[in-house]
């Protein structure tokens, strides 16, 4: 990014190549719509490019990048939450790409079960408050530590832990029905 700041256009292309997928994948899981995710990702990298001359390496580049990304994602989710009434689960799934599962599953029944669990988890993610959603996605898919998530969300580490604990508890509740023990157990 420092080379981009100095006007090296090739470095911006390399930076894009390195971080493009992680940004888009995060945005996709936040908004659950590929077209919107790509549009938001374009805006992220436009802002990175516009800010290149004033960029200061005071934190990790990914922290800065994901701060921009999360800011745009949270704004979009909040705006969409105000606008939409009720979307069906089917519509949400249709907005995204066709569901993909790892090819290791040969058993149809197991594949159907995983498919159902995936649908439940996606629905549960969709219903999470936006900050909890962002925290879970960064924790799970970006392997970020609590401190980095805190820097991105602009809150304390203990607040991040609280966000994650509540988010994962919601996700576990959504999958209780699939556990061998049944759905009767509650968290103490």
């Amino acid at each position: 990014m420092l080379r981009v700041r100095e006007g090296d256009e090739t470095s911006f292309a390399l930076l894009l190549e390195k971080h493009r997928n992680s940004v888009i994948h995060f945005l996709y899981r936040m908004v659950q719509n590929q077209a919107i995710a790509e549009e938001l990702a374009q805006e992220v990298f436009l802002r990175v490019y516009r800010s290149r001359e004033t960029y200061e390496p005071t934190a990790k580049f990914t922290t800065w990048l994901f701060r921009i990304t999360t800011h745009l994602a949270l704004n979009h989710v909040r705006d969409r939450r105000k606008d939409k009434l009720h979307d069906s689960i089917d519509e949400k799934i249709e907005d995204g790409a066709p569901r993909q599962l790892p090819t290791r599953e040969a058993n149809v029944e197991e594949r159907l079960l995983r498919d159902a669990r995936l649908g439940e988890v996606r629905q549960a993610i969709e219903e999470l408050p936006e900050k909890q959603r962002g925290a879970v996605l960064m924790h799970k898919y970006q392997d970020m530590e609590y401190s980095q998530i805190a820097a991105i969300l602009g809150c304390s580490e203990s607040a991040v832990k609280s966000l994650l604990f509540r988010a994962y508890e919601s996700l576990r509740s959504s999958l209780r029905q699939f556990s061998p023990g049944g759905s009767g157990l509650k968290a103490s």
Partner: protein
Amino acid sequence: MNCILNTNEQEELLLGYCTAILDPETTRTYKRHLASCEHCRTMVELQKMVDESLGDWLPPTLSENFDQKLFARIRAEQEAPKPWWHFNFGWKPAIPLALAAILLAVFLVREPGKSELAQQQDGIKADEIAEVEKALDDMEALQALSTADTAPAAKESI
């Protein structure tokens, strides 16, 4: 079935254990706890199911023209004419410039008051000068009178 750990401890250990970030000693301690706590065993099982389901959630492939579109937008921005107030400096100098303009306006509005004071001071000086001149004139007149009085006495003495 109540766990001896409080909720926060449960969650922190659970997440740490499932993401394998606990140190070896804490991992051993937690495993011993799991052996005797059905609640936490259930939580671990559910958390692993959540992790597995999240891992199954694969994103779609990226559009082929993503990079092309981005660079086209960047070029379009660079080629677009900048507004007259931009001057390649952006918006950042606007605030200090605005403050400077306000200070200048305040300075200009207060300028007549200052000249009045200066004028007052000038008036005082003019009065003083006039008094001094008058005093000098009076002294010359007295000197002339004293000279006229002493001149005939000097002639009589010779």
